[in-house]
């Protein structure tokens, strides 16, 4: 089975052979994986080099590797093949979600409005602070999932922007 791995900005392909050997590119690795804390913490020794890896949660998962935190996404080859075309294609939509539960103090856009990258979309108040959520890529506001003054859960969909 081959896996496509994206760690931060780094992309690599890891193959696990049926007999349990690990290949990265044409490099065969001597690997010793030892689980320290179930589903949470591992000691991984690769060719004698010791690494500690922790799974910090999140989606895609935030991984702690020797004290450095990075997003690490692993997709197996089938998913990769299927997703490849779409992955290469242009990004079509952008979702803005509430990063934490809070009160939606203000909505600065209307459906159908054009927004540029960096434009403020909504103001979310949480932890005694007002945080403005902004558009990353810009486009047209395809959907406003919420109204001003409502309480929203963490992860709740707030705005959808369609790219032009």
């Amino acid at each position, binding site marked *: 089975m081959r896996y496509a791995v994206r760690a931060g900005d780094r992309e690599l392909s890891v193959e696990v052979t049926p007999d349990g050997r690990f290949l990265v590119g044409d490099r065969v690795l001597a690997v010793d994986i030892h689980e320290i804390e179930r589903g949470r913490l591992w000691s991984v020794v690769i060719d004698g080099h010791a690494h500690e890896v922790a799974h*910090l949660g999140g*989606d895609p998962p935030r991984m702690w590797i020797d004290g450095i935190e990075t997003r690490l996404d692993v997709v197996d080859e089938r998913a990769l093949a299927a997703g490849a075309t779409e992955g290469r294609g242009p990004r079509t939509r952008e979702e803005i979600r509430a990063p934490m539960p809070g009160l939606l103090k203000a909505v600065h856009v209307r459906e159908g409005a054009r927004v540029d990258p960096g434009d403020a979309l909504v103001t979310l108040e949480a932890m005694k602070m007002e945080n403005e959520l902004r558009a990353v890529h810009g486009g047209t506001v395809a959907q406003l999932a919420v109204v001003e003054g409502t309480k929203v859960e963490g992860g709740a969909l707030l705005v959808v922007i369609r790219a032009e």
Partner: protein
Amino acid sequence: MLVANRGEIALRVMRTCRELGIATVAVYSDIDRGARHVRFADEAYPIGGASPAASYLDIERIVAVGVRTGCDAVHPGYGFLAENADFADAVAAAGMAFVGPPGDVQRALGEKTSARRLAAAAGVPVAPGTMEPLADEDAARETAERIGFPVLLKPAGGGGGKGMRVVRSAGELAAAWRAATGEATTAFGAPALLLERLVTPARHVEVQLIADATGTVVWLGERDCSVQRRHQKLIEETPAAAVDDALRRSLGEAAVRIATAAGYVNAGTAEFLLDERGGFVFLEMNTRLQVEHPVTELVTGLDLVALQLRVASGGRLPFGQEQVRRAGAAIELRITAEDPFAGFLPQGGRIDYVREPSGPGVRMDSALAAPMTVPTDYDPLLAKLIVFGPDRASAIARARRAVGETIVAGVPTSLPFHAFALAEADFVAGRYDTDYVASHWPAPSADVSEDGAIAGALAAIARMRSTPRPAAAPASAWLRAAREDMLR
């Protein structure tokens, strides 16, 4: 001793109390029943709902608990009621000692414009701006135009950097005024604002003071707290790289002058802004124990909480200015429940694994536990990692080592930023000011070595295989990637 607070500071205060043989009483909101400070205390009483207003800000209830349990004193920690003069008065009126300056002193210094007047009168320079609270938005506009943009809009009612707004042009004023007024009301229950010229780039340097009831005021050295996001501190250190002995003395003496003029008692901190040429202006006085007090403790060998209790019970300071000794360097890293890759947005959630650092020169002041739920109702500070070394270089190396040992799983934390800063050339060289975070962060995503990336991948694969889950559907896989980019 009633400790009217929660989190790491409640625990820190109670630890000193226990070492001094003083029984402690905790108060807690409904969602804090299982918190460390509740478990550590000798007695613990619920005071209401999760929202601060319903519990940790409820003066009447907290004082009632103190009276009912026969407390001699109340320690407010920082935040919440720590700088609320009415609370100090209510505690005193109930016959308990308030561990901090009395209400009138807090009023004189807590209201920022009055503090500015007091400093100016004491011959300490202040930044150009209003010496009275602003009447309304128009008054703000006039002042801003007089002293010139950019200006800083601040709540007059409280400190801690909450609710501050930078206004770069007249056009931004309206929105900023609305937001700042709102936040000032939420955070301090007082909408009043003031305005001063934005001194930037500048270093945020503060001086730790301790004063007893006999009028003895001693300064214990400075702290550089310039590394901030949203005007909130992330890293504090002493000594400050930009402060030499001469400047240290003049800052200390300026702070003492202000405190003396205000008839200050107990621990306090005078905050200053330092420009590139070593000139400084007084910002405000924090009439409480600071989050970052441990760095001063590590270089002076003093226990500031123990000193607070001593002077609060009418005792004299056991030393004078000449006896204060400082040795080595100390750095504090604030571990907060915030996502540094998403503009340090605070995040609640459930922490399910924690590994705290230890070993030589490492101090953790922490309220962390696993499992624990991080509420979104309070300040996102989870723990403070404080390191000590013979000099700044060794303290930084030690901090880097300790951060590398630390694992907090379940919520994003500020740790990635700390790992970055401790290895970043400007910070390591001591070249930083209040723009540091804005100008250096977010960094190009952390450089995991190839072997590291492989190790991470192998662990992730092992996890997928041991806990079989549907392989991520392609759409979602790249959608996740998109969302990831969005958060950067």
